[in-house]
């Protein structure tokens, strides 16, 4: 057993203890704002460690704790994304919490680090039980983070409660599915399940187990019809938490789908791919049509995130190495694009309010912010030269290739639907652009005067995200090489 293997996790856990200690030692009256910088620096250190470590390139991947912790390239790549998102979320939180006078800032950063730790364990899970415990740990942290504006915003508490109740329901579904799988196979280890799935017969119990597991995971990934928590939670949660939840929570759920469905239960792809494709088709249609009617900017982005989760799942449904690479690339683009969009919306909402109309005149007031938001939403819509175009292109290509090579015509139809609904999505993404550049600003509305104030933390977030949106779109080959090396 190699105890030094989970070094990045130890790093994040150590950071959590540092945050806790700081919060305990520093007197109450001193602002906890510095903790945001501490977290950002700590996450940057862990990120450097992750980027420097090489993915294992030979067959038996290193494991620890009796196979419960797996350190393969998939885990490494997803951890890199999660820690990067956590770093950006800490930077985005600094001034947001300070401006609202949130009382529990120490706890906020502590929960942020612990959620990151849980997400890292989640993508490294080699066992259904580790997976479940890590999933619960990150969910409980997120319930509290969503409701951190308690006392200042009623909707934040409401969203936290909704998320808690629905999250508990989904955990129960997943756990029931896991217990059925264990009853059928006699093992909870993912490697053991893969060996069992290669030769096991299909049974009605297996279909129920797969449906329950897929439902539990689809809930975390917010695929329709398990998305109903997402709009309320995304709208009412503090914006940095929304950004972190939408990118880190979703990429970790994607890693789980890959690990559980593709890797461990790949032998039953003929059973679960139909379940997954029904969910995805519903997601494409419902999320993209639902977004058209939204008036609140964060709620619109919530529906957009639900739709994006559907695109990400194409890579899982394809079940091929190409599909996995494409999903990882798209997840990378999605992390930076979505964080950029939420960061701009957060800054604009400080003066213009949460409504879409608050964006009016932004093109003249703050041309830089407007440009970044426009680039982000066009990237989400899949317009070149931004990263989202290549991401969608690789995903759709992987789906079409798998559909033709393996003769899975339903997959082809699904990709066709995704392309059509992607065009529909362009409409609501362009509503955002239209509000910023074309709609005349109401001179009576509050905060329509000067440029939007952009504090240093937000500046860093926007700089990193804008650079990544352009880099992934203009010169993606080094990133693709990194992904291929990670997923050998």
């Amino acid at each position, binding site marked *: 057993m190699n*105890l030094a293997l989970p070094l990045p996790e130890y790093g994040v*856990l150590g950071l959590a*203890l540092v945050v*806790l*200690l700081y*919060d*305990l030692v520093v007197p109450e009256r001193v602002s906890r704002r510095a903790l945001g910088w501490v977290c950002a620096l700590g996450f940057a250190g862990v990120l450097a460690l992750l980027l420097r470590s090489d993915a294992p390139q030979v067959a038996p991947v290193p494991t620890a704790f009796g196979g419960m912790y797996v350190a393969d390239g998939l885990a490494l790549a997803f951890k890199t994304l999660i820690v990067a998102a956590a770093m950006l979320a800490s930077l985005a939180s600094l001034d947001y919490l300070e401006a609202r006078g949130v009382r529990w800032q120490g706890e906020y950063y502590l929960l942020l680090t612990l959620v990151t730790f849980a997400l890292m364990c989640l993508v490294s899970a080699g066992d259904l039980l580790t997976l479940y415990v890590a999933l619960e740990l990150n969910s409980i942290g997120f319930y509290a983070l969503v409701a951190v504006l308690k006392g200042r915003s009623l909707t934040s508490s409401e969203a936290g409660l909704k998320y808690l109740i629905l999250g508990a329901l989904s955990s129960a579904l997943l756990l029931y599915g896991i217990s059925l799988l264990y009853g059928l196979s006699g093992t909870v280890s993912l490697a053991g399940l893969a060996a069992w799935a290669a030769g096991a017969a299909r049974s009605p119990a297996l279909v129920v187990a797969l449906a329950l597991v897929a439902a539990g995971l689809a809930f975390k990934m917010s695929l329709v019809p398990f998305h109903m928590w997402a709009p309320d939670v995304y709208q009412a949660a503090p914006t940095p938490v929304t950004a972190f939840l939408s990118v880190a929570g979703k990429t970790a759920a994607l890693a789980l789908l890959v690990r559980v469905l593709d890797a461990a239960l790949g032998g039953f792809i003929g059973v679960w791919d139909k379940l997954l494709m029904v969910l995805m088709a519903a997601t494409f249609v419902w999320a993209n049509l639902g977004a058209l009617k939204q008036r609140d900017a964060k709620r619109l982005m919530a529906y957009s995130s639900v739709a994006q989760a559907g695109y990400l799942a194409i890579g899982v449904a394809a079940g091929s190495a190409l599909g996995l690479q494409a999903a990882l690339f798209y997840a990378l683009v999605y992390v930076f694009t979505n964080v950029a969009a939420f960061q701009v919306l957060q800054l604009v909402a400080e003066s213009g309010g949460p409504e879409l109309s608050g964006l009016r005149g932004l093109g003249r007031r703050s041309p830089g912010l407007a440009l970044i938001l426009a680039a982000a939403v066009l990237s989400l819509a899949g317009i070149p030269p931004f990263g989202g175009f290549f991401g969608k292109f690789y995903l759709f290509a992987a789906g079409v290739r798998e559909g033709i090579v393996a003769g899975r015509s339903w997959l082809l139809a699904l990709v066709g639907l995704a392309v059509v609904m992607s065009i529909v999505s362009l409409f609501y993404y362009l509503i955002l652009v239209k509000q910023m550049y074309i709609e005349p600003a109401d001179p009576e509305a509050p905060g329509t005067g000067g440029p939007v104030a952009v504090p240093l933390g937000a500046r860093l977030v926007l700089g990193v995200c804008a650079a990544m949106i352009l880099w992934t779109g203009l010169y993606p080959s080094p990133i693709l090489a990194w992904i291929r090396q990670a997923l050998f």
Partner: protein
Amino acid sequence: MAFTVTVMGLLIFAAAVAANFAGMILTSTILGPKRRNSVKDQPFECGSLPVGPTHTRFHIRFYLTAILFLIFDIEVVFLYPFITILRPELGVTGLWIMGAFLAVLVFGLAYEWRRGGMEWD
């Protein structure tokens, strides 16, 4: 041989307990005063009412006590088997790992203390 000794020890202990028990009851029956009243005929006479509503309400603050209990209960659950195999198997590495585990718990305890979780009001 060793088995017989153990069993003999147990038997002697059991006999001593039984004798002690019987002796106490017997002594109090012979020597104690006997004044009967209605309260003494109730199943319990420690001041709690034998009949009443079953859904009793208790203070929400007990949840913190419950959480604390869980944490330290788990700690003991880990500590006990740890101690039994520390010498033969785990060695110094095991001691360090357990130290790290306990350190995390101590941090939690410090947090809880500092935030006033131990105070009732």
